[in-house]
């Protein structure tokens, strides 16, 4: 295999007789090569999505196999009227996504700029930055559960030693969601930092230096030189992180369990839809929530791509 050469062989190749299957496959190779992956994805998405859409218009409950009636848009109506669970979940989803995204972009940018120039020991630092990112999210949740434990956690121990009152962190009704956001920021800021760092290495340093000689301050150089060139990387990072933040599940489930805790304090749309589906088996309502959730993701994606094109 490794002997495949770039230069054409000198000995003329005797044309092998091709079978008709081979000829057909080569002629249609565009689709022959792409088809298995596309068929797999389509089969795994299209029918299930259609099914979910159908379930959202029925009163399916208990067992998917049970008798169900077509009830039109009643599920959507009751979801929209649900101020106890649905709308708070929408709020938490947006708050979680917006907050973590902004923090990760800002901190990721700072880290990328910090690590931009070569220095001794940079290999070790880059490995340190990579570790949170590859760690299993459920294990990360468990790890922080111990660290933030109100009575035996190291964070409260240090706070009290410094004379700051202990905080309830994950155990508090109002502090739980921000605490899960801290965990998410810890785990995923490295991702943004690495993407931006990869983008930074493609910027020639001469540009920065030229601006510096022209008397531009560090901030001006960042704002007018670095950021515009880096913009495509910022967009990629925002898209990747934004979509995943909207769908966050593992950390929330690992730290607070079912339903986002006993007061649903970290119940986002994804956690809510999961609970409706698999804890309450309320498939009709769950499907309506999921369709709306998917719509929200597509809307966010559309706005991001659109907003970026205008620039």
């Amino acid at each position, binding site marked *: *295999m490794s002997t495949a050469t*770039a230069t*054409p062989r000198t000995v003329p190749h*005797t044309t092998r007789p091709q079978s008709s299957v081979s000829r057909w496959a*080569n002629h249609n*190779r565009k689709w*022959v*090569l792409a*088809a*298995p*992956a*596309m068929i797999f*994805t*389509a089969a*795994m998405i299209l*029918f*299930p999505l259609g099914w*979910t859409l159908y379930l959202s218009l029925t009163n399916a409950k208990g067992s*998917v196999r049970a008798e169900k009636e077509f009830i039109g848009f009643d599920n959507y109506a009751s979801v929209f009227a649900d101020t106890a669970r649905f709308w708070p979940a929408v709020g938490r989803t947006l708050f979680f996504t917006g907050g973590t995204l902004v923090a990760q972009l800002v901190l990721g940018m700072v880290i990328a700029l*910090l690590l931009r120039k070569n220095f001794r020991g940079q290999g070790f*630092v880059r*490995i340190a930055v*990579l*570790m*949170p*990112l*590859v*760690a*299993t999210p*459920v*294990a*990360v949740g*468990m*790890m922080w559960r*111990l*660290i933030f434990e109100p009575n*035996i956690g*190291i964070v409260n121990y240090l706070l009290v030693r410094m004379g700051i009152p202990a905080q309830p962190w994950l155990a508090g009704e109002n502090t739980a969601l921000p605490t899960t956001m801290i965990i998410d920021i810890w785990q995923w800021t490295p991702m943004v930092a*690495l993407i*931006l*760092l*990869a*983008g930074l290495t*493609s910027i020639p*340093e001469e540009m920065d230096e030229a601006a510096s000689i022209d008397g531009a301050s560090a901030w001006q150089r960042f704002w007018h030189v670095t950021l515009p060139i880096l913009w*495509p990387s910022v967009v*990629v*990072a925002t898209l990747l992180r934004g*979509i995943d933040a909207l769908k966050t599940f593992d950390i929330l489930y690992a730290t607070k369990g079912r339903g986002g805790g006993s007061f649903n304090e970290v119940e986002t749309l*994804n956690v809510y*839809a*999961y609970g409706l*589906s*698999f804890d309450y088996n309320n498939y009709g309502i769950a*499907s309506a929530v999921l369709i709306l*959730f*998917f719509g929200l*993701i*597509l809307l966010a*994606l559309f706005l991001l791509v659109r907003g970026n094109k205008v620039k």
Partner: protein
Amino acid sequence: MRTSPGYRIFRIVAIAVLIVVMLMPIFWMVLSSLKNNVQIFDVANAFNFDPSLENYRNVLARSDYVDYIWNSFFVAFMSTAISLVIGVPAAYSMSRFVMRRSALVVLMARIIPGVSLLVPWYYIFSNLRLVGGYSVLILSHMFVALPLIVYIMMGFFDGLPIDLEEAAQVDGLTPIGAFLKVTLPLSVPGLATAAILSFIFSWNNFMFALVLSDAGTKTLPVAIFDFIGYASIDWGGLMAASTVVTLPIMLIALFAQRYVVSGLTAGAVKG
């Protein structure tokens, strides 16, 4: 470029803080996994204790953990292998024929919330009597692995010059033959990146296995929850179990750092 000494000191301090923030929590997890529950409660003497592997002995002996390690490995390995087989040719075709819209179909898998597919999957696969078996776990993890592989490999093939394939075709190879015998051997770095990333994401996946596995096919992220009881948490065991899940992945990242980083940042430069 000139940097003021003030900035240099700031940079050193900032990088030191960064290292502590990134590694300290992981270090704390490993440290706690070497303690019994009495020692874990004694935060004031956190570093003053006799380390013991007792928790690991419990984890590995007690709860079929060796089986769960195998389950995680087998599912991640198989889903990665099959996704490579169908994903790499697709990425090649999508790159060479510039099939952006078809690529979007595959990348859709990355965007759609998994929960919205799980109820129908559960229904279909339980009708086929597959729920709880390996095949359904592998299929669902392929759903994670495939878009990742297609995304990474499309970027890789985009950057691979087409001349070599054309030369091979002049040489008498069919187009598919040229792909198999010329392009693929040249793609080893890209394939390694895609395979490693895909393995990591499958290994770390939690939600699909939570619904689709049973007591025998449970993967590690699901099995961790065995250490959380209704009344109390076995912190030492929990930290040991969390370490067991995370350690293999961190070792991979350590030794294949270049591939992992290039996979994670794929597409970042081109935009």
